C-alpha cells in the first residue's frame, strides 16, 4: 500500500480526542447508566420521564416549542441571510457584526432583556403606551418572542455561511427561460437555499432545546424540560430522573442536528 508521504498523521489530534472522550463521551455513558438505574425510586428515571404526565409534557413542550421557534427563525431570517451572503453593499460587515454580538449572548441575558422590555414594569409597554404588552414576558407568547430573539442571530449567520456557495447565475438563467419572480423564488431559489435552511433549522433547534437561561428567568407556567431538569437535579435530588432528562435533551438535539447536516460537505 503506498503510504503516500503526503497524508500526514492524525497524532496531533490525539490529545483533543482524549479530552473529549474523558470529559464528554465517558460522562455521557455514565449518564445513560444513571438514567436506566432504578436507585431507590420506583422505576428508572428514563421510565418515569415518560410515565409521569407532567415531565412527559415538559419534554413534548420543549420539542414542539424548539421546532416552532427554529422554523420561524429560519423563515424570518432567510431574506436577510441571502442579502448578507450575496449582496455587496456598504455597511454589510457592520450589519453582520450587529448579528454576531447578540449571537454570543447567553440565555440568561436574553431572559432579562425580555423582562426589561415586556415585563409588567417593562420599557416597551410604557414607551409604546401599549398596556396589553404589560407582563407579556411571562406568557407563552413572551417566551416565544425571547427564544426568537435568542435564535435570530444564529439562524441568520448559519444560513449566511451556507448561502455563500449559492450560484446566482442560475436565477438569471431561470429568468431568461421565462420564469416570473415568484417562480424563480419557488423553483430555483428555494431548492438552492434548502440545504442552508435545513442546517440552520438543526442548529437553532438544538440551541432552543438546550437553552436554559431564558426559561429559567421567564419560567412561565409553560413547563420546559431544561427547567424541570434543573429542578430535579438541585431540588428533589432525583439524579436518575435528571440523568434521563439530560439524556433525552442530548439525544433529541444530536439526532435533529445530524439529520439537518446530512449531506453537508
Amino acid at each position, binding site marked *: 500500500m503506498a*503510504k*503516500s*508521504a*503526503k497524508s500526514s498523521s492524525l497524532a496531533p489530534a490525539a490529545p483533543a480526542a482524549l479530552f473529549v472522550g474523558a470529559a464528554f463521551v465517558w460522562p455521557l455513558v455514565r449518564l445513560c447508566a444513571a438514567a436506566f438505574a432504578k436507585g431507590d425510586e420506583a422505576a428508572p428515571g428514563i421510565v418515569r420521564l415518560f410515565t409521569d404526565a407532567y415531565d412527559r409534557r415538559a419534554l413534548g413542550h420543549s420539542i414542539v416549542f424548539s421546532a416552532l421557534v427554529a422554523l420561524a427563525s429560519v423563515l424570518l431570517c432567510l431574506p436577510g441571510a441571502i442579502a448578507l451572503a450575496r449582496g455587496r453593499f456598504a455597511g454589510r460587515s457592520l450589519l453582520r457584526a450587529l448579528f454576531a454580538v447578540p449571537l454570543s449572548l447567553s440565555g440568561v441575558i436574553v431572559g432579562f432583556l425580555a423582562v426589561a422590555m415586556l415585563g409588567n414594569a417593562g420599557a416597551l409597554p410604557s414607551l409604546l403606551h401599549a398596556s396589553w404588552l404589560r407582563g407579556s414576558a411571562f406568557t407563552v407568547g413572551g417566551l416565544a418572542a425571547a427564544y426568537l430573539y435568542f435564535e435570530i442571530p444564529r439562524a441568520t449567520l448559519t444560513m449566511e455561511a451556507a448561502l455563500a456557495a449559492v450560484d446566482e447565475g442560475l436565477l438569471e438563467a431561470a429568468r431568461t427561460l421565462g420564469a416570473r419572480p415568484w417562480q424563480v423564488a419557488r423553483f430555483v431559489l428555494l431548492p438552492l437555499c434548502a440545504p442552508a435552511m435545513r442546517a440552520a433549522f438543526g442548529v437553532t433547534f438544538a440551541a432552543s432545546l438546550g437553552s436554559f437561561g431564558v426559561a429559567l428567568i421567564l419560567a412561565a407556567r409553560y413547563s420546559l424540560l431544561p427547567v424541570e431538569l434543573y429542578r430535579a437535579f438541585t431540588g428533589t435530588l432525583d439524579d436518575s430522573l435528571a440523568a434521563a432528562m439530560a439524556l433525552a435533551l442530548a439525544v433529541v438535539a444530536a439526532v435533529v442536528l445530524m439529520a439537518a447536516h446530512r449531506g453537508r460537505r
Partner: protein
Amino acid sequence: MRIALDQIRVDFPGHRALDGVSAEVASGTVTAVIGPSGAGKSSLLGVLSGLIAPDGGAVRFDDEDVTSWPAERRRLGVVFQELRLFDFLSGRDNVGFAPRVEGAAAGERQRRVAEALALVRAEKFADRPARVLSGGERQRIALARALAMRPRALLLDEPFAALDAELRRNLRDELRALIARLGLTALLVTHDRDDAFALASRLIVLRDGRVEQAGDAAALYRSPASEFVATLLGEAMLLPIAARDGDRAQALGQWIAVTGSGSRAVLRPDALEIVAEGGGWPAQLVDARFAGSRWRLTLVGPDGHSLTALTDELPAAGARVAVRPRGPVHTV
C-alpha cells in the same frame, strides 16, 4: 542531471497507479510524460518529487539512488498544476522562499530573486500580493519560485492547463527558450499533445500505469507502436490492410509503401496529398475549411471511408480527385 526510473510500482486502495514503470530522462533534455487522465501521470510526478513513496522500484539522479530521499532534499523545481502559491506572501517573497529556507544571505537572496524574476519577466507585478495576480502572472511567479532554487531539474505538471489559448502559446515558447538557455533537464506531465510536442524532444506514453512507448517525439508520431499511441499523438485514420508484399501493402484497393509489421495503416492528415484522378484513392470532396495556415479537406474515399487531408491549395469545386500518401505509411 539524468533521471532514471526503474520498475516503479505504486498501489492505492483499489487500483494500481504505476505497474513497473521504467523510464529515463537524459540530462539537458525535455521529456514529456503523456497519457489520458488516470494513466498514472500525477503518481509518477509524486514519486519523482518525493511526495509519494513508491511501493517498489528505484529512482536515480545521475546514478545515485534517491528513492528514499524526502522531497525537501531532492532540489527538483516543481511547478504544480494548481501552482500552489503562498497567497499570504507577495510574488517576490514567494520567489524568495527557496533561497530563504536554504539559508542564503540576504544579498544573495535578493540577487537570485531578481535573476529569477528577470528570467520570467515578472518584475513589474512581483511586489503585489500573490492572491491578487492574474492567471498568467501567477504562472510566471510559480516558475520563478522553482528556478530561484537553482533546481537540478524541472518538473512541470500540466503547466498551462488553466490558461487561455493565446497566453498558453506565448508562455510555452518562452518556457522552451528559457529551458534551452539554462540547459535544464525537465520533465513535463501533460495530457495535451500540443504542449508535449511544443516543449519536449522525447516522449513517454503512459497507459493504465504502464509505459506504452517511449522515445523521440517525431519517431513516436510517425511510427506509433499501437493504435493507442497513434490516436493519442495526433489525428489518425486507420485503414485495414488487405494484402502485404514486403515493404508494400494493399489498402482500399491501392498499393502503398509501408513500414512496420502492423495490420493497419496509420494515415495522418498532413501526410496525404491531392492528385489528379487515377493517381491514388478515388475520393469525392465533401467539405473544405481554412484551418489557419492550410486547408482542411474532408473527402469520402473507396467504400465510404472518410479521409481528412491538410493541403496548401483548395482543389476546384466538384473536380474528380484522388488521394495519395506522400511517403511510406507506418502500420500498427
